[in-house]
C-alpha cells in the first residue's frame, strides 16, 4: 500500500460499540412470546359468544381488581429495586425486589382462588364449553409466564442474599425486569380481552 492510500483510508471508529447480546436476545424472546400470545388472544376474541352452552362469561366472571393492582404495581416496585441496585443501596434493593415477588405471588394466589371458585361453583372447566377452553388457556398461559418470572426473580434474590450478585450483574437484573414488564403488559391485554370485551 502506498503512503497516499494509507492517508485515504477511512478513519476507523475510535471505539467499536455493539448492543449487548443479552439485550438483543431478550428483545427477540419478547417478540416471539408476543406472537405466541397473539394467537391465543385471537382465538379468545374469535370464540367470544360462540359457546353453545353455559356457563357464559357474563354470568360468572368477576373483575379481578386486587390481582390487577398487585401485578401492575409490581412493575413499579421492580423499577424501584433496580434504582436501589444502581445506587448500591442493598437494603432498598432487597426490600423492593422481595416486594415484587410478593405482589406477583399474591396475583398468582388470587388467580388460583378465582379458578377454584369457577370450577367448584358454576362448574366452568376447560372442557365445559368454548368460553372455558379459551378462558383457562389464555389466563393459564399468562399465569405460567408469571410463574417463570417469579422463578427468575426468586433465583436472583437468593443469589443476592448469598452475596453472588455484583454491580456488573446489573444488566442481567435489568433483563429480568424487562421480562417482568412484558408479563405485566400482556396482563393489560388479557384483562381487556377477557374482562372488558369478553363480557
Amino acid at each position, binding site marked *: *500500500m502506498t503512503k497516499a*492510500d494509507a492517508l*485515504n*483510508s*477511512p478513519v*476507523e*471508529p475510535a471505539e*467499536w460499540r*455493539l*448492543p*449487548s*447480546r443479552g439485550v*438483543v*436476545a431478550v428483545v*427477540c*424472546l419478547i*417478540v*416471539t*412470546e408476543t*406472537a*405466541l400470545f*397473539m*394467537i*391465543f388472544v385471537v*382465538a379468545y376474541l*374469535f*370464540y367470544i359468544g*360462540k*359457546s*353453545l352452552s353455559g356457563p357464559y362469561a357474563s354470568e360468572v366472571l368477576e373483575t379481578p381488581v386486587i390481582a390487577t393492582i398487585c401485578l401492575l404495581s409490581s412493575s413499579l416496585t421492580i423499577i424501584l429495586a433496580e434504582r436501589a441496585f444502581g445506587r448500591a443501596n442493598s437494603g432498598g434493593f432487597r426490600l423492593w425486589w422481595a416486594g415484587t415477588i410478593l405482589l406477583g405471588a399474591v396475583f398468582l394466589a388470587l388467580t388460583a382462588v378465582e379458578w377454584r371458585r369457577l370450577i367448584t361453583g358454576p362448574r366452568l372447566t*376447560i*372442557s365445559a*364449553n*368454548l368460553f*372455558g*377452553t*379459551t378462558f*383457562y*388457556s389464555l389466563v393459564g*398461559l399468562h399465569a405460567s409466564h408469571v410463574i417463570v418470572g417469579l422463578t427468575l426473580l426468586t433465583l436472583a434474590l437468593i443469589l443476592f442474599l448469598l452475596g453472588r450478585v455484583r454491580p456488573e450483574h446489573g444488566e442481567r437484573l435489568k433483563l429480568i425486569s424487562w421480562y417482568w414488564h412484558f408479563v405485566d403488559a400482556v396482563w393489560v391485554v388479557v384483562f381487556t380481552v377477557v374482562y372488558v370485551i369478553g363480557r
Partner: protein
Amino acid sequence: MAAREIALTPRTGTLPAAALRLHDLVVTTDHKKLGLMYVGAGLVFFVVAGLLASVMRLQLAAPNNEVVSPQVFNRLFTMHGTTMVFLVGMPIIAGMMNYLVPLMIGARDMAFPRLNAFGFWMFFFGGLLLYFSYLAAPGITGAGSAPNVGWFAYSPLTARAFSRGHSTDYWTLSLLVSGVGSIASAINVIATAVSLRCKGMTMMRLPLFVWLSIVTSFMILLALSPLSAAQIMLLLDRFLGARFFDTQAGGSAVLWQHFFWIFGHPEVYILIIPAFACLSEIIPVFSRKPIFGYPIMVAAVVMIAFISLGVWAHHMFTIGMPSVGNIFFATSTFLVAVPTGIKIFNWLGTMYGGKLRFEPPMLFCIGFLFQFLIAGLTGVMLGMAPFDWQLHDSYFVVAHFHYTLVGAFLFGIFAGIYYWYPKAVGRLLDRRLGIWHFWLLVIGFHLTFDPQHFAGFLGMPRRIYTYEEGRGWEVYNLISSVGVVAQAAGIMLFVVNLVRSYWKGEPAGEDPWDAWTLEWATTSPPPEYNFETLPVVRSSRPLWDLKHPEDPDWKYE
C-alpha cells in the same frame, strides 16, 4: 491448574477413541461442530424421507397398484412432509447459519454457545420422538402408529374421535419440541449477528448470507411460536378435552387452518431465504464480480419477509372466504413476486458480463435460477383465486411446491454444501462426481415433477393412494416414478462424494475458490477459536482488500 490436568489425564486415557469422540459431540458447544451435526442429522433424515417418497412413487407408478395399503400410504405422506420440513429443512438451515455466521462476521463463537447446543438437542430428540412413533404400539408389524393426518394435520382429522391412539400426539409433541429448538437457535443467530461483529463490520458491510440469516431468524421468531400455540391448543383438545377445534361444541376447524398457515406460509420463506443466502455468496465468487445491488438485495429480502406474513390464507381459497379475503390474499401473494423478481434480476445482473466458472456450486445455483423461476410462475398462477379453486389439492400444487422445495431450496443447499464443504473438512468434494450429481438430479427432478403439473390439470388429487385406469394419469405417473430412479442415483453419488472426499479429497487450503468473505481468511477446517486475532474490516469484501492492497474496495464504498 496443574493438579486438574493430572487428574484428567488418566480418566480420558482409559476410554476408547470412538467413545471419546462421541463424548465430545455430546458435550460440545462449538458452533462449527454443532453446525455440522445439524447438517449431518438433517441429511440423514433427508435420506429417510426420500426413501418414504420413493415407496409412494412405487405405489403410484401404475394404476390399481398394491405395494402398500391405504393406511400405510397415509403415514408415508405425512411422515415424508413433516420430516422434510421440520427435520431436514429446518436443521440444515440452522446448521449452515450456525457454522457460517460467526466465521463471516469475524467472531469466535455464537453469542450463546450452550443455548446453541440446547437448540440442537431439542431438534434431534424431537426428530427421534417423531420416528419413535413407528416403533410404538401397535408395533412394527402394524406399521406402527406413525402420524397419518397429513403434514398440516387439518382438524377434525386430529380430534380424539377420529385419531385414536397416540399417532397425532407424536406428531404434535415432536413439532413442539423441535420448534423450541428452532426458536432458541434463531434468537442465537440474531444476537450473534448483531452483537458479535468484528471491528469495522457495519451492518451494510455484512455478507448477504448474514443479512439473510438475520431475516430468516426473525421470521422464525414470528412464525414458529404461532405453530407452538396451535400445537398447545391441539394438545389441550386431545388431553384435557378442550374445545378449540371441536365443531360439535361450536369450535372451528377453519381456525386451525388459519393458525397453521400463519406459520406455514412464512415457513416456506424461512426455508428458501437461506437458499437465497447461499446463492448471494456463491454467484459473485463464481462470476468474479461483487454482488449487483447489495442494498436492494437487503431491502428485497426484508420486503419478502414482511409481505410473507400476510399471505397465509392463499392456502385456503377453497374454504369459502368472503371475496374481500380472497382479493386481499391474492393481491398480497402477487406482491411477493416483486421483491423475489428483484432478487432474480440481481443475481442475473451479477452474472452478466462476469467471468463465469462452472464449478459444481455454480451449476447448482444456475439450476436454482431456472427452477425457482418456474416455481414462482406456478405460484402466481395458484395465487389467482379462481385458478386455485380449479387446481386446489391437485397434483399441480404438489408439483408447484416441490419445484420450490426441491428445485430451488435443495439446489441452493447443495450449492452451499459444495461451496463450504472444503472449509469445514479441509478437502474439496470431487468435481466429476459433483457434476454427475448435478445432472442426474436435474434430469430426475424434471422427470418426476414436470409431469405432475399435467396430472394435476387432468384432475388427479394429491394424497390418493391409487387411481383407476383410463383417466389419462397413467403415463404422467409412470414418468414421475421413473424420475425418482435418476434422483436417487444422484443423491447416492452425493453421499459417496461426501464420504469419500472426507478422506481422499484434494486438500483445499484456506481459500480454494478465491473468495472474499472472512470465513476464507482462516484455516480449513478452522481452529476451535476461529481466528488467532480478530479481524478488522474496512469494506464488504475484506479478503479482496487483503489480496489487492493496490486497489481495495474501501476506496469506493
